[in-house]
């Protein structure tokens, strides 16, 4: 790397400065291109201990006098008896409801849940008729979750797969550390949404708060309204025809297509100026070269 004087560095733009320091001279390869699952395998994957449930076999579960643990144990017991559709009544904002379901299941929650609801799930289709608290769908791996009202902060934190949908507005840090899947928000999202996002897609039909996509590694965020500010290394990209087709398909699927369509959406991706995890650090280069 040619030496660069301090004076010339000062006169450069941030992008020019980063390149001049040799931080983005190599093509990103390796981990950023890594595919974790064979799509065919993941589509048909069933855990060996999964229950054989019948979606037409339906029952109600009243959680009014049960603790969160008792509700979750009861859901497992009902699945073991072959129930494929469960209606959870009176959740009353309880925390950690319906977590760790690694099974096909139709779950309807008639009310609102508290913190960490529907976390670590792999497979169920869930509809929450009320609101959800912080960290709904955290580490979700597959399936579909639809929230009819608003959601709290860290909605879909570290989500790996599936569709996590909120028809209302969500709090701050939506999709923090997300590693795959799709998050769809019908209203607004708060500050630091998409923080340290690594893969996957997020659609926000309303406005986004400050520092959108801060320190994101990869993945894509689409915003239909205004963006208060971009985070470090988040940059606007061209909305292609492929993007528009995908947005239309997803938003139509969940009946959330805005009246204006999708042409006005802003696409946000990682500038990849901040993180160069496929390259050697400048100090490591010196040691080798």
């Amino acid at each position, binding site marked *: 790397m040619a030496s660069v004087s301090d004076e010339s560095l000062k006169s450069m733009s941030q992008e020019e400065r980063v390149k001049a320091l040799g931080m983005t001279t190599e093509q990103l390869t390796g981990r950023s291109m890594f595919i974790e699952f064979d799509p065919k395998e993941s589509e048909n994957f069933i855990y060996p201990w999964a229950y054989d449930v019948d979606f037409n076999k339906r029952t109600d579960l009243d959680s009014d006098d049960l603790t969160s643990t008792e509700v979750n144990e009861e859901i497992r017991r009902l699945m073991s008896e072959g129930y494929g559709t469960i209606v959870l009544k009176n959740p*009353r*904002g*309880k*925390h950690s409801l319906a977590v760790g379901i690694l099974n096909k299941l139709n779950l309807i929650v008639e*009310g*609102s849940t*508290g*913190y960490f609801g529907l976390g670590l799930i792999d497979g169920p289709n869930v509809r929450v*008729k*009320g*609101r959800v*608290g*912080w960290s709904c769908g955290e580490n979700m791996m597959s399936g579909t979750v639809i929230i009819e*009202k*608003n959601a*709290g*902060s860290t909605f879909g934190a570290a989500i790996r797969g599936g569709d996590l949908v909120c028809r*209302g*507005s*969500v*709090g*701050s*840090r939506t999709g923090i550390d997300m590693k795959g899947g799709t998050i769809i928000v019908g209203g607004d999202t*708060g*500050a*630091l949404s998409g923080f340290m996002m690594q893969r996957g897609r997020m659609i926000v039909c309303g406005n986004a*708060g*400050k520092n959108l996509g801060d320190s994101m590694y990869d993945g894509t965020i689409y915003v239909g309204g205004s963006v208060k500010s971009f985070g470090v290394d988040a940059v606007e990209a061209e909305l292609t025809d492929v993007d528009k087709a995908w947005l239309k398909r997803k938003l139509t699927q969940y009946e959330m297509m805005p009246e204006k369509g999708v042409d006005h959406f802003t696409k946000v991706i990682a500038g990849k100026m901040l993180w160069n995890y496929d390259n050697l650090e400048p100090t490591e280069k010196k040691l080798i070269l």
Partner: protein
Amino acid sequence: MCGIAGLIHKGKKSDVGSQMTSMLQALKHRGPDSTGYAVYGDGNGGDLVMRIKVAEAEDMGRGSGIYDELERRIASVDEVLSKHKVKVINKSKATDYALRYVMSYSGDLGVLANHLEEIEGTEILSIGNGLELIKDLGDASDVSEAYNLNAFKGTHGIGHTRMATESDVDIRSAHPYWAFPYNDVSVVHNGQLTNYWIMRRQMEQKGHRFTSNCDSELLAVYTAHNLSKGMALEDSLKQSIEEIDGVFTYLVATKDKLGMAKDTMAAKPLVLYESDEMIAMASEEVAIRAILPQEIDTYDPYDEEVRVWQA
């Protein structure tokens, strides 16, 4: 972690004491060390209500001698009140170490309060026309029962369940904090204030005093300072987001208002319910559901959001 809750009824009185107890009991898991209430009623005409403690709860385990000591301290309180020509209309004991005075006084509250707190072990919890500030060790049910809070009727209130992280488990460090010496102003807070010592030094240089080492007290003193300069409550809340560092959500109540402020990172939770009749807010939805079990719409306020409601 701590839990905070607030409730305001628009233009009418309700069972604020029992409602706050239900909300705070639902937040017990966020802080089991102590529970506090600042509830606002009609007051006693133009008279003041003073809540005062003359010992910490833990002092009561020091043997029978403590009861003689408490009597001496209470006698000293009465003596100071008499010296300042305070007319005591009613005096009652909530616990062995906590008293409630209804009194008439037109002098300088700051001078009176400072004189009272010179008595060993004595701390004024609140003075106000409508405010009744109660805090003690234990959960909401314990405190409510000890102080007969379920019978309290009023327009609004704020409360706190405390998990001690940065100061002792005692009443002195429990919330709410009264904004000394301004009557009817109280604060509850969830979070950590990272420029506490810098701001405390600034406030002390301006003549304000602190009774504890709990960072939350700064918000009460800061609010009191701003209100004393004629600043509106909403403006004080907005300014605090600029001047106070850290992660915080806090609630402020005055005689007829309730306000909230959330820090620039929105790192501490608050769930809000609004209707034409009432507004309820808490660290977790489960607290709101404790008084409104029917299906309702709630939302999370965003970063740097400030709201003020009128009773």
